[in-house]
């Protein structure tokens, strides 16, 4: 299977995506940004369809749209009371724009499908290189700001009184999240992005009580999903995203059962 270039590309891409998703996901869950992640994926869809319309690579359109809007949403929804409404409004607007750009670009339904549901098996060498580069940027920046990010994500009150610059960390994290959403969309598509960016991390927190261990487990769960998904997709010719979604959800259900078991004993 790995003698086929497209499968090799798919495996390399999905490995980087799983690592990025595992790390960023732990902070997404801790900062309670799952809903925002969902919105960013819809914004990513609009960005990708804009790119198709403008004749760019879809990834570039996604990065542009998600970066701009993540900061915008972050600023608009500082007040928690209105966060949900702001996010709903913004996501509605961007899905609308996505549909418009797709319609204007006269592309067939298949390009919409590949943006929405991912097309990892069709990923080219150049796209793999770009994806690796972006993943490395996300990972390096995350490592550099790891301690203040960890503090503000897991104890916002303590971080504030200890002089961590909340605004800087928050904006920087939203930019990282936007990049991660764009990267992860390549494999699972923009509709299922939160499958990798939130579920592995949400499952991990039931098994361990340390941040580093949570990151490790989240990466492991994401890798398990993407690798097994690719393998099953190759064997059955069914969509890879479907398998990834099912595997991650099964892991989450096991995590919840484990938690109930621990609480009961």
């Amino acid at each position: 299977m790995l003698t086929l270039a497209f499968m090799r590309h798919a495996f390399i891409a999905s490995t980087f995506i799983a690592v990025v998703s595992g790390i960023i996901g732990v902070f997404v869950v801790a900062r309670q940004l799952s809903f925002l992640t969902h919105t960013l994926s819809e914004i990513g869809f609009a960005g990708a369809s804009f790119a198709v319309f403008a004749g760019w690579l879809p990834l570039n359109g996604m990065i542009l749209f998600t970066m701009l809007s993540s900061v915008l949403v972050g600023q608009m929804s500082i007040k928690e009371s209105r966060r949900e409404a702001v996010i709903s409004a913004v996501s509605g607007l961007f899905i609308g724009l996505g549909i418009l750009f797709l319609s204007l670009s006269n592309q067939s339904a298949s390009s919409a499908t590949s943006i929405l549901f991912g097309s990892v098996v069709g990923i080219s060498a150049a796209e793999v290189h770009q994806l690796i580069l972006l993943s490395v940027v996300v990972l390096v920046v995350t490592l550099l700001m790891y301690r203040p990010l960890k503090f503000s994500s897991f104890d916002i009150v303590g971080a504030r009184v200890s002089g961590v610059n909340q605004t800087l960390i928050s904006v920087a994290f939203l930019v990282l999240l936007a990049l991660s959403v764009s990267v992860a969309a390549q494999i699972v598509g923009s509709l299922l992005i939160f499958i990798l960016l939130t579920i592995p991390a949400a499952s991990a927190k039931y098994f361990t009580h340390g941040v580093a261990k949570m990151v490790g487990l989240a990466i492991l769960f994401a890798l398990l999903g993407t690798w097994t998904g690719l393998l099953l997709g190759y064997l059955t010719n069914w969509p890879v995203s479907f398998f990834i979604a099912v595997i991650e959800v099964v892991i989450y259900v096991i995590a919840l059962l484990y938690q109930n078991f621990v609480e009961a004993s």
Partner: protein
Amino acid sequence: MAVLSVDDLTVAYGDHTVFKDLSFTVNDGDFLVVVGENGVGKTTLVRALLGLIKPKAGTVNIPTGTRIGYVPQFRNIDEEYPLSIRDFVALNSRQSWLPWLTGKERHALDRMIRITDLTPIAERPLGLASGGEKQRAYLAQALLPAPRLLILDESTASLDNEMKYNLLDLVARFQEDGLSVMFITHDWDLAEHYGTRYLHITKDGYSTGSIDELAELRKETVEC
């Protein structure tokens, strides 16, 4: 030597003046208790000291490089909170930027966990800890960078009597080693038991002095 000196501090929200022309100092090794009814601006004062709100007038002087530890009144830690007590305390390890703790930081963390009697429960999730254990963990986190001044904002409010004294005994041990403490409370018994100086804020003004004077003041207040 003064760790903190406040001169003619006035804080207002819009037209509403919370307190006016407040002056006091905290010296090395002091245990200053800040007492007063709810709503007189005790927490507002702390926020102004930490630079979280801008005062309308007056100055807050803290010698350059002085570290302040702060245990806030409220914290959003629920049962689902995922970190262990040890990892929660370690969040305030800030000597290095490395993703893992350095040997020196690990040593300081272990020591702090031991001194605050958290060793047997250090690996348990903080979300499942009792009220007293949580307060000890908050205290350990605030004390980890070895601050010169520790500010406790109603840290004993949710605890039963025995727990209150346990927690403050622990703080007093650090005070004996030279830590200055500013303890905000409305429990006058605790204030008299642990304080060396007091600051009493009322709606109309304030008074400050040695702890013996607080006992006098209390008698007067009760007699009134």
